[in-house]
């Protein structure tokens, strides 16, 4: 047996962990390029299109704003303040969730803790990982925003300055999130979900109060509303908040005050480094107690399901025959008991409803100018894209997740393809409930006339039908029965196909509705649109439903032919 004492040098271990992670990422990338070049190419093209679209949109907005000095002075700093304030909240939550899972739930942490690794190395590694995972989307979406602004200024150095602001900002919510994750593990290990839901509920309640206050300006002119909005956003501009430093720094940079911009960059960076150091050292020092609490309390007792969720699940599908009703009820119970699924839907649609409640009634300003119908159309676009996100991530994997229980499905007294009816019924119930609620809220907020209300509700139902049909049908046609991780199923070749098909369907339907809206822009919204516009809308609705049915049919045929 070797008597050589093992090395315990800290830098070697952290470097080793980073090298292993880098190796795993390289292997993953090589595997993806080798196994699914089409998927990688499609994703790259899609990201490039989205990226260019965002760049073009922001470039146009900033160009227009800078043409009018007053709006530029007021709006641009406000936009950045608000953007970074929202990012501060979202990234803090995102980092807290990722850090909690990485530190206290994953088998990797348990494995590394049994090795001669000091907690500081593990915590540092997980901190860096959570920063990367949580902030890549911000960087991806934020860079075109920053570049579009930098494009308004002639100096090339702005590009680097703006990127530096991004990189300096990201660790701040990361550090706060990691401290939050530690606190939840240490003090609320048995109530992780209720703690997160409680904090989210308080935030949403505050936003709701703020939103209700803004309703008093709904009949005011656009300028009054904008100024009242700026007043209400005053708290975001507090000098102690990081978003205010970044917003001020960008504003100074934009106006050519390099020294002031550099000072705000240094303030942001210094705070980011200090907070990172504080969070990592504190969590590392107190890690073992939190890990023990999180591990011990998870085993403290059996989890009890809310009895109401069973009742709801049973009643919701009364119209289905018994075996299918059981499958649909099982899916609904799983959905209601999985916070990952329902919380994402609630957050996405909650933010949408909040946005709608804050939207001033533009009816008086825009009626007669040909722009009024644009607002409900944009709402329809937002709802459709959120629905597509939900169906691709959560509905598509439903059939694949039955893979290990396929023998059970095969024993049911119905053809295997018929289970798609249950999956479809579940998906339609959930998506229709939230989509119609959001759309009803939008038409009431905008005081939309009966004709366009009916058109928007019909299109919403048709899009729900088409997207659910695609997700269930393609999910059955291109399943991954061996995989038990829903995220991986959604990212597979079938998931990518479903994503592309869903985007194409939503794009086609919305283009048709957009054309009809454009043709009717000078008509009062309670008057029937011209026949051609109506026909276009009817075609869009029919096409969406037909596509959904066709996908379901193909999926059922494939499932009937599978040998268990």
């Amino acid at each position: 047996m070797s008597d050589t004492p093992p090395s315990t040098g800290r830098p070697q271990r952290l470097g080793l962990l980073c090298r292993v992670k880098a190796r795993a990422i390289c292997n993953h990338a090589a595997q993806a390029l080798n196994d699914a070049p089409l998927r990688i190419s499609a994703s790259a093209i899609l990201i490039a299109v989205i990226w260019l679209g965002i760049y073009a949109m922001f470039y146009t907005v900033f160009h227009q704003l800078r043409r009018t000095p007053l709006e530029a002075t007021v709006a641009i700093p406000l936009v950045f303040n608000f953007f970074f304030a929202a990012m501060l909240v979202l990234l803090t939550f995102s980092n807290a969730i990722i850090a909690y899972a990485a530190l206290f739930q994953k088998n990797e942490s348990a494995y590394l803790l049994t090795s001669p690794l000091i907690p500081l190395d593990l915590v540092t590694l997980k901190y860096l990982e959570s920063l990367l995972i949580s902030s890549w989307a911000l960087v991806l979406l934020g860079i075109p925003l920053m570049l579009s602004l930098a494009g308004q200024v002639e100096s090339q150095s702005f590009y680097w300055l703006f990127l530096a602001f991004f990189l300096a900002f990201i660790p701040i919510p990361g550090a706060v999130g990691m401290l939050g994750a530690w606190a939840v593990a240490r003090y609320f290990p048995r109530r992780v979900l209720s703690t997160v839901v409680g904090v989210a509920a308080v935030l949403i309640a505050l936003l709701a109060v703020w939103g209700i206050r803004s309703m008093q300006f709904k009949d005011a002119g656009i300028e009054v509303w904008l100024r009242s909005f700026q007043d209400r956003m005053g708290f975001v501009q507090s000098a102690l908040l990081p978003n205010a430093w970044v917003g001020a720094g960008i504003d100074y940079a934009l106006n050519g005050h390099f020294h002031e911009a550099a000072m705000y960059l240094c303030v942001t960076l210094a705070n980011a480094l200090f907070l990172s150091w504080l969070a990592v050292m504190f969590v590392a020092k107190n890690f073992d107690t939190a890990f023990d609490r999180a591990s011990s309390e998870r085993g403290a007792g059996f989890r009890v399901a809310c009895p109401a969720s069973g009742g709801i699940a049973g009643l919701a599908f009364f119209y289905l025959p018994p075996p299918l009703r059981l499958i649909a009820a099982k899916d609904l119970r799983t959905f209601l008991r999985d916070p990952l699924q329902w919380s994402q839907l609630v957050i996405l649609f909650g933010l949408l409803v909040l946005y709608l409640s804050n939207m001033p009634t533009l009816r008086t300003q825009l009626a007669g100018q040909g722009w009024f119908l644009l607002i409900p159309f944009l709402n329809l676009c937002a709802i459709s894209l959120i629905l597509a996100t939900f169906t691709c991530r959560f509905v598509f994997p439903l059939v694949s997740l039955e893979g290990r229980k396929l023998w059970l499905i095969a024993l049911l007294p119905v053809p295997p393809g018929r289970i798609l009816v249950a999956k479809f019924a579940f998906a339609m119930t959930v998506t229709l409930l939230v989509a119609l609620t959001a759309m009803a809220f939008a038409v009431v907020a905008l005081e939309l006339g009966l004709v366009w209300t009916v058109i928007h509700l019909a299109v919403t139902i048709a899009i729900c039908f088409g997207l659910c049909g695609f997700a269930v049908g393609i999910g059955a046609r291109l399943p991954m029965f061996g995989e038990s991780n829903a995220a991986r199923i959604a990212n597979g070749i079938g998931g990518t196909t479903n994503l592309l098909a869903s985007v194409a369907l939503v794009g086609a339907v919305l283009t048709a509705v957009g054309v009809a809206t454009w043709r009717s822009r000078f008509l009062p919204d309670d008057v029937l649109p011209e026949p051609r516009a109506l026909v276009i809308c009817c075609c869009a609705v029919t096409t969406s439903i037909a596509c959904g049915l066709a996908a379901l049919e193909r999926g059922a045929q494939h499932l009937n032919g599978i040998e268990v």
Partner: protein
Amino acid sequence: MVTDCAAEELAIALTGVSKSYGRRSAVRNLTLEILRGEIFAFLGPNGAGKTTTIKMIVGLLKPNAGTVEVCGHSVGSNGVAAKAQIAYVPDQPFLYEKLTGREFLYFVAEMYGLSVQRRDEVLQELIRRLDIGEYIDHMTESYSHGMKQKVVLAAALLHEPKVLVVDEPMVGLDPRTIRAAKKLFVELARRGGTVFMSTHILEIAEAVADRIGIINEGELISIGTLAQLRARAQREHSLEEIFLGLTESLNV
């Protein structure tokens, strides 16, 4: 206190250890001493406290009361030194899915400070004996449970630990590998290492264990060699009969 595993006889020492999950007591006042060069089998029904005890030995859980020492190092206050002596094979094997088996084993070797030459020598031997050469250069995500278990076992033995803690080590292994693993455990013990093994397969405990401990509802109800357990039962029972007799009579 024991200061050096090589000089003293105790490899693992649990003194008055208790652990609760909320209100549920998992382990109660457990005192256990495992000697250097010993293979110890830890038996008990499901939920008896075996895995909780193992997790306290390897430092994943902190006892509510009592102390745990490995080779004289307190797991609570000097965890890094204690863990440097331990290798742990959990019941659910962990591997980085996007690494090959070889890359994972290299990572473990470097983690424990093995020289490249020593690593290659030991690894070659383990690959041969555990019969993992065919897939060692494939990504671990494609491994079956048994394949993963074998690679994890190789990783545990790679740095020649002084204390090997294994939780249900034979689940998913084929008979040939079970025989190879048993032989590796015996060889490790002959070289002065200690094996602490939790298992439900009583034949394996009967075949390789020097001493056997039986835990039920968090309490150690019997400990000793197979002969001592038989003597206490006052009949020539098999281990299975002794185990069932002890745990059932207490449960009744």
